[in-house]
């Protein structure tokens, strides 16, 4: 988008704007604030647009009657569908947008019409979000501007400004007639995705729009959850889709990992114990799921224990002064197998997990052998030093005798 030159050019245009000169003097904040905000900072202002481009009217006219003349195109404050039309007038016009932002999409309005917001709006519901609800009306910033309400780290709060308000969301229901929850943002803020986004500075971490869509915002349908999560978590999605659960789970990944409060997974989730997730559906000693879960969890725990034990041994030997670089590397490789096993587990087929674990265990076995050799080296050193200790003590004893011999007068010389 062209900026600097346009900004300089835009300034004089604004000062010759009767909208601004009149409205800024009005006592009502509702009327005086918008032009002030627009003059302060706005992406449209930067490109030379002004009040009349959205609101219509005559900005050269000095009196309200002429300025607000409907005949000169005055539309007033757009509301409801009018907002979409106002924004869409330019933003859905490919030829126009090509002049200002060639890479920007021009199908937002069409997308919006497919969204829950769009459908509700078409049905007459004015409480739903429109363009200005998320993007603002007068102080609009670019999406990659950190202060924009639709910047990656701000999206959740913007959605929550409506979706977390029970007052605003009263009357809306889920397909199963239950009331629409308002705790999504609270749940999301517990998630690893939120942590990655806000604390980990990873802007590729998902927020509301990454799973629900931007303009075509709607919850992913049952059956499409795996695809949605799979856009980033491709390996897991692929393995899951080959599993028995792919046919059974209504909500795919969400069944185990939740949709908003996606927490850091732990091995505890797998298995047949009371704390495991498998136990929510699987029970009974001859249940195939219980058997598979128990086996997979058992395998993973076995490798985990082996890795921890070997790692401790290697660390102790390194600390004692032996060179264990290759073994440290091998332990890291075994840990890699642990990660691979946890990935493979999503196929829910124990027969696929076991070989991965066995590879890891083989690596650990090699490490243990090398550690045994290193421990033997330590013992050898100790024995060597013990031997030299013997030689030293021999000298000490011999010296003792020598001193005694030197100082004991020889018997045949006693006077």
């Amino acid at each position, binding site marked *: 988008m062209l900026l600097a030159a346009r900004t300089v050019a835009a300034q004089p245009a604004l000062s010759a704007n009767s909208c601004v000169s009149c409205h800024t003097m009005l006592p009502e904040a509702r009327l005086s604030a918008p032009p002030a905000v627009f003059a302060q900072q706005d992406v449209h202002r930067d490109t030379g647009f002004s009040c009349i481009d959205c609101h219509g009217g005559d900005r050269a006219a000095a009196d309200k009657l002429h300025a607000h003349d409907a005949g000169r195109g005055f539309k007033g404050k757009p509301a409801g569908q009018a907002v979409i039309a106002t924004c869409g007038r330019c933003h859905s016009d490919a030829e126009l947008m090509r002049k200002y932002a060639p890479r920007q999409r021009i199908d937002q309005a069409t997308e919006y019409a497919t969204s829950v917001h769009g459908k509700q709006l078409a049905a007459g519901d004015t409480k739903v979000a429109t363009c200005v609800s998320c993007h603002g009306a007068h102080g609009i910033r670019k999406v990659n501007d950190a202060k924009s309400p639709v910047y990656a780290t701000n999206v959740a709060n913007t959605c929550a400004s409506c979706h977390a308000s029970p007052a605003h969301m009263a009357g809306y229901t889920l397909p199963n007639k239950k009331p629409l929850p308002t705790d999504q943002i609270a749940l999301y803020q517990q998630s690893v995705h939120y942590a*990655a986004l806000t604390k*980990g500075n*990873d802007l*590729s971490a998902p927020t509301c729009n990454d799973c629900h869509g931007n303009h075509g915002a709607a919850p992913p349908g049952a059956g499409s959850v795996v695809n949605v999560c799979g856009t*980033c*978590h*491709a*390996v*897991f999605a692929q393995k899951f889709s080959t599993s028995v659960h792919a046919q059974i789970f209504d909500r795919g990944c969400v069944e185990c990992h939740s949709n908003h409060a996606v927490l850091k997974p732990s091995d505890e989730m797998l298995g047949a114990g009371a704390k495991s997730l498998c136990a929510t559906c699987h029970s009974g000693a001859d249940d195939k799921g219980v058997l598979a879960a128990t086996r997979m969890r058992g395998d993973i725990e076995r490798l985990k224990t082996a890795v921890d034990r070997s790692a401790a041994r290697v660390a102790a030997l390194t600390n004692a002064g032996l060179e*264990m*670089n*290759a073994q*440290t*590397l091998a332990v*890291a*490789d075994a*840990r*890699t197998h642990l*990660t*691979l096993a946890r*990935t493979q587990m999503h196929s829910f087929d124990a027969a696929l997990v076991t070989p991965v674990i066995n590879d890891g265990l083989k690596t650990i076995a090699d490490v243990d052998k090398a550690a045994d050799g290193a421990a033997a080296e330590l013992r050898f050193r100790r024995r060597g030093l013990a031997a*030299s200790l013997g*030689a*030293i003590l*021999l*000298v000490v004893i*011999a*010296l003792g*005798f*020598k001193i005694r*011999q030197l100082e004991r007068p*020889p*018997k*045949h*010389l006693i006077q």
Partner: protein
Amino acid sequence: MSELPPAGFPATPAAGSFDRRRFLDALLAVGFVSTAAAIAYPVARYLVPPDSGEAATNSVVAGKAAALKPNSGMIFPFGSKPAIVVRAADGQLSAFSAVCTHLECTVQFKPDASQLWCACHNGLYDLAGNVVSGPPPRNLERFAVNLRGEPGTEDIVVSRGA
């Protein structure tokens, strides 16, 4: 010293004590020599530098240049962490830490895509170490690569920036 011993005093104890003294002196000599050797031998061995030459903090020999074919990669230990040296299809050498920045699995070279790939969660890096796709949050640490030695039998020397 050449006094005659008093009568009745057997000559053997005198000879015996002389032998004892000789024995003790010999024992002492053996003791001193063996302890001196027990000190000198380790010190002598210590003075001879080991094959690895110097502490592998910042620089490691990855292997022979001739052994690395174009469009292939080789994992080697850099200290106690894995590293990988890659020869691109055009012959250029580059080296990176092979520790994936996601969950520390060891990455490998994928010849069909000429990218570095992490098998754990499908992270992909290009041959500049930049993340292309997948979960890794940061690029791979890049190392400097140099060749050292006689042409034809050069070593690939990988070093961390000083």
